[in-house]
């Protein structure tokens, strides 16, 4: 079933088409949600809320640009709204002291997707959101700051701290030989 048929079916309210659309994109979108959520349970909630929005706002998709990109934006926005709703405090854990790791790039290449997602999931909330928006989604610091309602300088600082935190995690993994292959 091609994408257009799938969308048209969903617009008609066909449950079969809705299910097919879910099955096609749920895996990728759950990975997106996992990156933003605190826990897998929160990620499942975001995925559910996001897909309901996808079905109800489908008439606003005008077949311009990538459909997957459109769904992804809905998931990211839903995750961000969840974050704003819960008002998680940005955690400060004195990560400024963590050393930078030159092996970060190698470690990223060697670790599995699940392990990388697990690491991102363990990032403190503030770091995780900025890291996802800027490093993975490709937002500028100005855009990320606007979306999260923080200063641009805060966004930069959070990203630096997130990177150091991840670097430490990757470093630890490298030193104990988990990814020493």
């Amino acid at each position, binding site marked *: 079933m091609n994408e257009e048929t799938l969308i048209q079916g969903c617009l008609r309210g066909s449950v079969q088409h809705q299910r097919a659309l879910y099955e096609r994109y749920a895996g990728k979108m759950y990975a997106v949600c996992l990156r933003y959520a605190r826990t897998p349970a929160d990620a499942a909630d975001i995925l559910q809320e996001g897909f309901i929005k996808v079905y*109800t706002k489908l008439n606003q998709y005008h077949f311009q640009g990538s459909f997957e990109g459109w769904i992804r934006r809905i998931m990211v926005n839903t995750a961000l709204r969840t974050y704003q709703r819960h008002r998680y405090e940005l955690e400060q854990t004195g990560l400024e002291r963590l050393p930078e790791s030159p092996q970060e790039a190698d470690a*990223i290449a060697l670790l599995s*997707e699940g392990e990388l*997602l697990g690491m991102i999931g363990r990032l403190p909330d503030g770091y995780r959101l900025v890291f996802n928006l800027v490093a*993975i989604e490709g937002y500028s610091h100005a855009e990320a700051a606007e979306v999260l309602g923080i200063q641009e300088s805060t966004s930069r600082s959070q990203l630096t701290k997130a990177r150091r935190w991840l670097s430490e995690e990757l470093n630890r993994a490298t030193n104990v030989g988990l990814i020493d292959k």
Partner: protein
Amino acid sequence: MPEEELNHQWRDRLKEASVPPPAFVWPEIEHALQRKKRRALLWWSSGGAAVLLAGAFWYSTYLPEKNPTVPAPSSIATVLELAKPSVSASLSQEGIGAASVPQQERQKLALESSRSSDASFKAAEELPPNKVAHAALLEQEQPSVAPQSRGVSPLLPLAVSFPAPLLSSAKALPGWPSGVIRKRKEQTGQCYDFSENRRAWLLEGYAGPLFARKVLETAGDPEQEAYRDRRLATEGPGWGFNLGGRAAYLFSEKYLLSAGLDYQQFAEVFEYADPSSIEYIIKQVLDVSTNTWKIDTIDINFGEERTRVINRFGLLDVPLSVGYEWRTGRMGLRLQGGAAANLFFWKRGAVLDPQTGAPGYFTPGKGSQSVFRLRAGLSWQAGMQWFWHIAPKTRVVVEPTFRQQITPLNQVGYPLEQRYQNWSLRIGFSKIM
């Protein structure tokens, strides 16, 4: 390595990442979509019913009456009424007071004089055909007036000065001029003649607010009284709406049998604060030396956990009633009562669990506890309807109604018996067929 390059590396690894979601997510989505669809259907049907009622009201109030049992209104007479000051002024100029000339004579006089004026007659011709016909009817119905009115022929030249622009303006008003509507309402004061038509079918539609009072009984078990008190303390009263329609058969002039469909929906707030809540914030850490996940307790929060849920109930019933009505002039009163059988009962929300004492959802398919039955069973109801004829075959009705559930809503074996006493104020229309 430059920051942007690292970003690219993360992006390349994770942008296309895919993780199978938990199996429970799709059923939840499907359930939520169905709920949205049902809600949309309800809104559309409520909107449609409102439009139909508004249409029926407009039709019965503003369109010309075609019922031959009632003398039709004379629009020409109304137009004359609009022109009355001018005629009176003309009469005053001749030294004859308006009050000294009988009303019918003045109307007849003005009717004739308007026909004698080209401009005025043209204006009258441009009125809807039925109104001109009404004017003719008026002439036929008042034969005794004609000779007398001819007797006041000296006034005719003055009456010819009947202002044509006034007639034109009456015609030019959008829809029907308010004067016409007022006049018509006054003249259609007579009701449907029930003494000649001792049997009739009535179709009725109504909507209005509803108050639901919950009654919880311990089914004779005093040990459950504490649980009942906690339930009552955590659940507020219900407010909602009631809409429906019915067909009633009136016989022997005053007795009625009716059946229809009635929908009641109401919501109540469930609020619970757990004073001894403990929140454990736990994170899993991967021990890379053994490649195993370890649970690491990071924080414990003590405090009060609040739960607030809007409990919603909807009941679609088939009510069967008997009634008796009194009529006087255009208004009347009907007493009616009977039983209602439930067709469909939906529920969503949470209450305290009788076993654990903690909040638990009872929403079918989602809830952690089974509280309510599939259907609500039987109830009895009684109401008093006040009605007012806005047309011989159309009534506006206002109907305070009380309904009490006979069979409890909860499942057999549940420690409490839960029923509702619903008070509703129904406002609607009744059409005699």
